[in-house]
Each structure stands twice: as structure tokens, then as C-alpha cells.
């Protein structure tokens, strides 16, 4: 009796994902037998599509305890997208499977890419730093692998170092900076005080903010660097020290409307709000932050995705979760419309003008054909709520208003090959 109950319990506790294949087969058989336009397909020729998720370790170096990532950040987005793909796939005789692959920081990803190719995953969603991503793309090229970058915001991956087998879902630093800048211009907060960190990624974001200021007519009235000398983040009894430090950092600037911080490394920006010498709002890496997603976003049906995510993982959905969800959904969406599991045909469809993906942003998202970057609105998040969504009204473009965010076709250095 005891054993019986235990077995029953363990069956109940099986993740939905494990039970699904059975259901998929029955339903697919049912659907295909009756749906005219899926033609002669039957359960026997269900299309199987494997998608890899290749990622490095998550950084736990965060200023706020709240921001320390859950161990499955990113992966959870991939898993939910696989569920969603399969719910749709069961009506079309398509079955999706995820293969998770984690590598260490700095490792050569070639072996992992080859292993995914050997297992039959032609599409690989990635969350890797730029250098590792390029190595992965080049290793995958010979095997016909297609990467979908859901993590790296670097312009160079879409510009001089672009690759023909890499689709980009993550917004670039320029897109994020432009989305923020448009709003600051609308608010008439044109005088910026730019404070940037001393790490490479901080410098790249600072450069994106400078570019955005020039593009939209803001003026950087002062610039300052915050040197990471170690030990700046959370420490016991650090509050009083930080308060004094932030006053020192901000007190000798000429008058400005908004402090714009570039601190991807999470060394200081989180300490700026309410601690600046002058009472001014903070934006960029803290305060008003441009992102692809936030856990409070509920427009355009997003509430349904948030609910689905929370029900499955018992936590909030982060920008990385959303970017990886979108990466995996792109493959599912292409498979529904192109009605194939052939990777080359799916990739051709994704690159065609017919392709678009709905990602709860109120409009269809499409790829820039010159560098395979996903066009997307940028959410401005105050840590609690979505303050605004860019592009802002009045920022016009002859092709798509979404192309007012990030480098545009005439400026591109990308030659896809």
C-alpha cells in the first residue's frame, strides 16, 4: 500500500515535459488523421526537432540580493518555449526536444557544439559572452549549425564580426541605449551626467549611451569613471560607506537633468539612486533601466506568459528567460509555418520576409535582413513597473519605427557570410 502511494506520488510529480511525448503522439495521430492540409502525415512521420541551449555559468556578482539569478535562469525560458512549441506541434505532427549544455567561462565551446550537432540539434539557443559565441558559431558552421544568440548584447557580433549562421534575439547595447535616450528626450532631460564603470562591458555600454546622446540630441555635460578597486559590492555594514562614496562620486559635476550610469558589471550603479549629490533621477544600469522584459510587464497578453512561467517555475520571468524563450519559439514558429523539420528549410523561412514572431510586444517582431538581429521594442523598467516602451511616439523611420533603435542598415559594417 505504502509503495503504491509512493509510486502514485512520483508519477504525479513527474514534470509535465516527461509525460508529454505520449500525449503528443496520440494527439498528433488524431490531428493528422483528420486535418486535411497536413496531408498524408501520420504518427509514423512525426517531425522531430531538437534544439540545444548552450550557455555559460550565471554571474552571481550582483549589487542587490534580489537580482542574484535562479540556477535555471535562461534554461527555464527554453523549457517553457519547448512546452509551447509542443502544444502547437501536437496539432501539426511536430515534436520538440531541448538539449541543455553548460560550459565553463572561457572554455572553447567547439566540443559542446559538436556534441549538440551529433545529437541532432541543428538550432542552438545561446547565452554566451561574445568571444565564446564567435568560437561556437565558427565551430558550428561546418556542421550546418544555426545559433540563436539570446544573451550577448555586443554590437560587434552584429557588425564587423557578424556571422551568417547566427540570429540575434538579445537587444544590442545600442538598441537599449537608444530606447532609453528617446524617452529621456521626450521628457526633455537632455543634459546627462555619464558615470561609467572600468570594465570592458561597462565601457561598451557607455559608448552606446554616448552614441545615443549624439543621435537624439542629448548633451553629456560631464563624464566620470568609477574604478572597480574590488570590494565595492555588498558587504556587512557597507551602507554608510556607500552613501558617502556616491556623494563624492557625483558632487563636482555641473548641473545636469539625469545621471546616466554604464555599469554592466554591477559594481556601483545600483547604489546611485537617492544618493546623488544633486536630487536627480538615475537611468541606464540602475534607476530607469532599458530591458527586453520584466516580471511586472502585463501588456498585450504578456500576463498569460508571466502566469504560465510562474506556474511552472515558481519564480518571476527575467529578461534572459524571455530572450531564450523567444529564441526557442522562433524555431517553433518557423516549423509551424514552413511545415518541416529540415533545418536548412527552417532557417531559410526564418530569413524570409514572411517570418515574424509574436513576443507580447504589441506588434510582430521581424529580423533585420542585413545582420539577422530581431527588431523589438525596448521596455523601460523602474524595478517595479514598466515606465514606458520605446520607440517613443514621433521617432519615425521609413521602414520600421523599431529601426530607430540600434544601428540601421546604412550604418552597418556587417557582411553576412
Amino acid at each position, binding site marked *: 500500500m505504502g509503495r503504491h502511494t509512493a509510486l502514485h506520488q512520483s508519477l504525479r510529480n513527474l514534470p509535465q515535459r516527461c509525460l508529454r511525448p505520449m500525449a503528443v503522439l496520440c494527439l498528433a495521430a488524431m490531428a493528422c488523421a483528420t486535418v486535411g492540409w497536413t496531408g498524408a502525415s501520420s504518427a509514423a512521420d512525426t517531425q522531430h526537432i531538437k534544439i540545444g541551449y548552450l550557455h555559460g555559468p550565471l554571474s552571481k556578482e550582483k549589487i542587490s540580493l534580489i537580482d542574484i539569478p535562479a540556477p535555471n535562469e535562461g534554461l527555464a525560458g527554453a523549457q517553457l518555449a519547448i512546452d509551447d512549441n509542443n502544444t502547437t506541434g501536437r496539432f501539426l505532427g511536430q515534436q520538440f526536444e531541448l538539449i541543455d549544455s553548460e560550459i565553463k567561462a572561457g572554455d572553447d565551446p567547439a566540443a559542446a557544439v559538436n556534441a549538440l550537432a551529433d545529437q541532432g540539434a541543428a538550432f542552438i539557443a545561446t547565452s554566451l559572452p561574445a568571444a565564446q559565441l564567435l568560437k561556437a558559431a565558427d565551430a558550428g558552421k561546418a556542421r550546418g549549425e544555426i545559433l540563436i544568440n539570446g544573451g550577448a548584447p555586443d554590437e560587434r557580433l552584429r557588425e564587423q564580426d557578424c556571422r551568417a549562421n547566427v540570429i540575434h534575439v538579445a537587444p544590442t547595447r545600442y538598441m537599449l541605449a537608444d530606447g532609453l535616450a528617446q524617452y529621456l528626450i521626450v521628457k526633455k532631460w537632455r543634459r546627462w551626467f555619464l558615470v561609467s564603470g572600468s570594465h570592458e562591458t561597462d565601457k561598451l555600454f557607455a559608448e552606446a549611451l554616448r552614441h545615443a546622446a549624439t543621435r537624439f540630441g542629448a548633451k553629456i555635460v560631464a563624464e566620470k569613471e568609477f574604478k572597480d578597486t574590488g570590494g565595492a559590492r555588498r558587504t556587512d555594514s557597507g551602507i554608510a560607506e556607500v552613501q558617502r562614496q556616491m556623494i563624492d562620486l557625483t558632487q563636482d559635476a555641473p548641473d545636469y537633468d539625469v545621471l546616466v550610469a554604464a555599469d554592466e558589471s554591477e559594481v556601483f550603479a545600483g547604489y546611485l539612486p537617492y544618493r546623488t549629490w544633486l536630487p536627480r533621477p538615475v537611468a541606464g544600469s540602475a534607476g530607469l533601466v532599458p530591458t527586453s522584459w520584466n516580471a511586472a510587464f502585463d501588456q498585450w497578453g504578456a500576463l498569460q506568459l508571466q502566469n*504560465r512561467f510562474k506556474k511552472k517555475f515558481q519564480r518571476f520571468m527575467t529578461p534572459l528567460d524571455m530572450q531564450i524563450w523567444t529564441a526557442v519559439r522562433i524555431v517553433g514558429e518557423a516549423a509551424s509555418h514552413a511545415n518541416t523539420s529540415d533545418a536548412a528549410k527552417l532557417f531559410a523561412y526564418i530569413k524570409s520576409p514572411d517570418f515574424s514572431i509574436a513576443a507580447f510586444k504589441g506588434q510582430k517582431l521581424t529580423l533585420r535582413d542585413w545582420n539577422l538581429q530581431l527588431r523589438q521594442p525596448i521596455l523601460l523598467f523602474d524595478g517595479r513597473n514598466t515606465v514606458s516602451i520605446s520607440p517613443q511616439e514621433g521617432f519615425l523611420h521609413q521602414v520600421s519605427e523599431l529601426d530607430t533603435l540600434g544601428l540601421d542598415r546604412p550604418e552597418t559594417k556587417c557582411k553576412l557570410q
Partner: protein
Amino acid sequence: MIDTRVIGHLGLTVLLLASTPAPGFAYTAYVSNEKGNSVSVIDTDTMATVATIKTGERPRGIEASHDGKFVFVAAGDDNTIQIIDTATRKIVGELPSGPDPEQFALDPAGKFVYVANEDDAAVTVIDLETRKAVAKVPVGVEPEGIAVSPDGKFAVCTSETTSMAHFIDTADRKVVANVLLGSRPRAAAFKADGSELWITSEVGGGLSIVDPATHTVKTVVHFEIPGLRSEKIQPVGINITHDGKYGFIHLGPSNRVAVVDGTTHQVVKYLLVGQRVWHGAFTPDGKYLLAANGLSNDVSVIDVAGLKVIKSIQVGELPWGIAMGPK
């Protein structure tokens, strides 16, 4: 730009308040107020709100029984469909809708209710007589719109992330056909003769005209309004006149209802209504269409023959949908 529109709308309202609608129709309209947690009762003779009925949390989908004795309203946050007795205007029971009900539809015989369970990828079938759920049919991700064919043979459910319309055989309660649509399909409605199925798409930005016999998309109607950004034009509710001559498509935050020719599928006219127009209902004589404007907390009255807005009626907070019953 927004200011001018608002002023325009208000001006129109003030102007039209002075004119009285033609007398001689006596129906009752029930408006679900999503934020007010209530149903406003409108007497269509006087075109005024005459009562407010408290409901459960977040009432959205609303339908009347065919005999007019009951109004059913989906209280999403309470995970139930409440039953209002139209004679006493009291809640007299509920239907086991499954989680977070939004849109639902009655079959022509008035025997079964089909409910889209948004968070559950399923359609729940409820027997109205026993008030019990008799089946749960798995559909695509985020089921939203639902409609039953005039012959009662099929219930059609749209799923937003899957981007399909699923045809459910009402006898077997199984999905028998699927149609791939523009992104994020919303509401669905059949022509009264069953010849066409109309489905709005939020992100696809259009209206798909589907042939229910062959399960194919015949054409897609697109909406463009000069001076408005495309994401402000979100097609939602559909009301097709009984003779199939016109379809009225509620275009959400564009504050317009589009009039689509039922034969040529061309947009004939855009009617300026209140803010964020969502769903509507015809008076049973077909003379008037009432449209719920979520953000302006009112209902626009459209003269169907004249294709013009003749009045607006104040209701509760965030009106979502409308059901029509006898007086």
C-alpha cells in the same frame, strides 16, 4: 493628436446627447465592467444605465441565455462563470468554468457552454442544465476567442501563441481541424448562414476570413487609419449583422469600430467611438450596435442603418463586453 481625438469624441458625445434615439425598441443590455467588478444594466428604450449588479472579480466574457432568463458572466479572478437571474438581477448560481475564464459561447440549442481556459490550453464544455463540466478539450497555447457554428456542429477556439483556430466537433468533443492564422488570433464569429468564420488577430493586425467548410483562410482584411501607429490598431471584438451585410470590428486602442462589407470584405468606414473599444452586441432587432469602451467607461450606440455613432452611455469601470436580453 490624442487631445484632438478626445475633444472630438467629447464634442460628438455632447452634440449627440441632445438628439434622442428613435423609440420603439425595448431591450436590456448587460455590460461587464472588468475593473468595476459589476454588470451595468442598460434600458435600450431610454438608452440609460438603470441598475448595477455586483459580480465576482474581473468580469469579462458575458452572454445571455436564449430565453433571456439568465445572463452568464465570466469572473476571471474568481475562476467561475456567474449566473444572473435577469428578473431579480441577482446572482443565482455559477458554472464550473475552469481557471481564469474570459471568453465563452453558447451553442444554438442553448444546451452547452464552451469556455476558453487561457492559462490551461483547454476548452471546458459545460452542460447548462446540470451546470456541470462534461469535457475538457486540449487546444493550443493561450486559448482566447470562441464561437459555435450556427448549425451547432463545431465550436471554434482561437489560441494566441499557437496562432490557430481549432475546430472542435461538438458531438465527439475533439479537435478535428486547425487553421493557421496571423499572430495572436483573438475573437471569432460566424456569419448567421455559417458561410464564413471571421477571426481578428492582435499582432497580425488584421481580420482573417475563413471558409469553415475547407478550413482555409480566404482573405485577410487589414486596417489602416491615417495618423495612427499600427500598434494602436488592435482588432478585437466582431459583430456581424444577421443578413451578413456588414461586420463591425472593434479596434481597441485606436478608439474606432471598423465597418467591413460582408461581401467584398472592404473596409467601408471607421466609426469614432470611446477609448479602447473591446466588444459589442446588437439589439435583437438589429437596429443598434452597442460597443463597450474600456478606458472611457462608456458604451457607444451605433445606428446600424446609418453607420453612425448616435450616443454614449456611462457605465461602470473598464467595460469589457455586452450581452443583450429582452426587457
